[in-house]
């Protein structure tokens, strides 16, 4: 995949994220302060606006930096800072790349996840976005060439979200409600899942979008 296609995919997927505002608002209100819907909708609109002026020459790094900065300041909540910082880390690891194969995409994704772990200091089981992100990246790692890899990632993410719902959040605002967070799905992890689902729609054949058939290789 070249940077032009990468930019279009990110744009198309981002356009679909505001549709999840209400769901994410309610999930975050149940165990936090209810602003995740705003962070994701305002953040993804800012990403689309940041991609607008970029030309075909824009490198993967430039694209990721633009997305990272835009997402982190639109509604600068914890999730905005985490994802924004992660995108900047991915931008760094994309330096010099002119093509993205699956292995490259995994490298970028690992850089993003690594920054979130470093900054947020959360671990698996703390009921954060990591509980969906890290297992799904392992699935990606283990079936790098499978045409169904994105479907498998979505399944594992969904399953992790449902499993961790019964846990007590140990990080961020949700942790302050202590037991009150038990029984509620993590809003950040759900936002990640919705992103993966929309990615699947955007790159699936038949959807109205540029020829992405080479993505599979």
């Amino acid at each position, binding site marked *: 995949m070249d940077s032009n296609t990468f930019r279009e995919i990110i744009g198309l997927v981002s356009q679909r994220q505001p549709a999840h505002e209400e769901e994410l608002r309610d999930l975050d*209100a149940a165990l936090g302060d209810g602003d995740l819907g*705003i962070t994701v909708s305002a953040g993804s609109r800012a990403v689309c606006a940041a991609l607008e002026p970029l030309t075909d020459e824009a490198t993967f790094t430039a694209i990721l930096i633009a997305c990272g900065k835009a997402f982190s300041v639109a509604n*600068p*909540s914890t999730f905005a*800072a985490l994802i924004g910082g992660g995108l900047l880390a991915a931008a760094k690891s994309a330096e010099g790349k002119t093509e993205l194969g699956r292995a490259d995409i995994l490298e970028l994704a690992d850089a993003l996840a690594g920054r979130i772990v470093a900054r947020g200091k959360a671990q698996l089981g703390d009921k954060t976005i990591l509980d969906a992100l890290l297992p799904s990246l392992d699935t990606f790692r283990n079936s790098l060439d499978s045409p169904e890899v994105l479907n498998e990632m979505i399944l594992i993410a969904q399953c992790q979200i449902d499993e961790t719902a019964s846990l007590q959040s140990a990080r961020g*605002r949700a942790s*302050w409600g202590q037991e009150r967070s038990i029984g509620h799905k993590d809003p950040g992890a759900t936002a990640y899942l919705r992103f993966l689902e929309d990615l699947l729609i955007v790159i699936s054949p038949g959807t109205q979008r540029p020829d992405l058939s080479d993505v599979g290789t």
Partner: protein
Amino acid sequence: MQKIINNPESFVDEVLDGILLAHPNSLKSVSSDNRAVVRADYPIDSRVGIVTGGGSGHLPLFLGYVGKGLASGVAVGNVFSSPSSEQILAATKGVSGGVGVLYLYGNYGGDVFNFDLAADEAELEGIEVLTVIGTDDVQSAPAERSKDRRGVAGIFFLYKIAGAAAERGDGLSEVARIAAKANDRVRTMGVALSPTILPAAGKPTFTLDEGEMEIGTGLHGERGVHKGPLESADAITDRLIQAILADLKCAPGSRVAVLVNGLGATPLEELYVMYRHAAKLLKDQDITVHRAYVGEYATSLEMAGASISIFELDDELEALLDADAASPFFEQHGV
């Protein structure tokens, strides 16, 4: 929601315009978007600067504590959301007197990341930064994880203590030491009688019916740890004081300062009814109240409710607590 506003989008900027227009002799903006505001008389050569910050909707918190003997600069975020690292950096440069800057703010995820980012950038520009994070809410994490606790109204005492230390010329590490010492001796617990509504969200985060209360709530409309029938002022005050003293463990004969803080809609009269019982409970345990602060010190827009903070003093802290302080939102002189 009955609000006197023009529109949610321009709300914070209009608030900042109004504040800068109302108090030109005390405050000045050091960023084009007015989101970084500092003491009019800062930076002062070889004087430690103190930068705080956080979301809007909590006045007097955070901007209200920029002044003489208090914090020296603030970065202002949107309603209930963090300021960006650029805004924090602008405030940092606006107060740096060449001897370093202390970051002093409440423990919230977004704030921690953005302040850490700004600290990295400040170091690159030769400004030494130390950080002390307010973690006074006893309900938000068990004692063994007190470092993860939420920062709420008790941060007022940190501003008063650290600000007085900086005002008398203490060095950066000394100001940070004293601020951290104060943080270890402040405990807060709150009660909400109505939820607050994020202007942009338009819906409250939790619902409370007539005759219900939520114990252990924070400043951003987060749910507390217990929801139950609304109790009497004395019963509520019992709950808050006992939980705080169980965690702070003041010995009989100790001296404390007490803050009874209104969350926005609760009248001053009701806060004094709570103080009346708090004073009795402390007297029963032979704990002397050196100073009492009663009023709206850290609000949550129109939230009905209150919090109580207890700050255990020693000679060093008492002297700093008694020092003069003055901002357009808080003044203390002499006795």
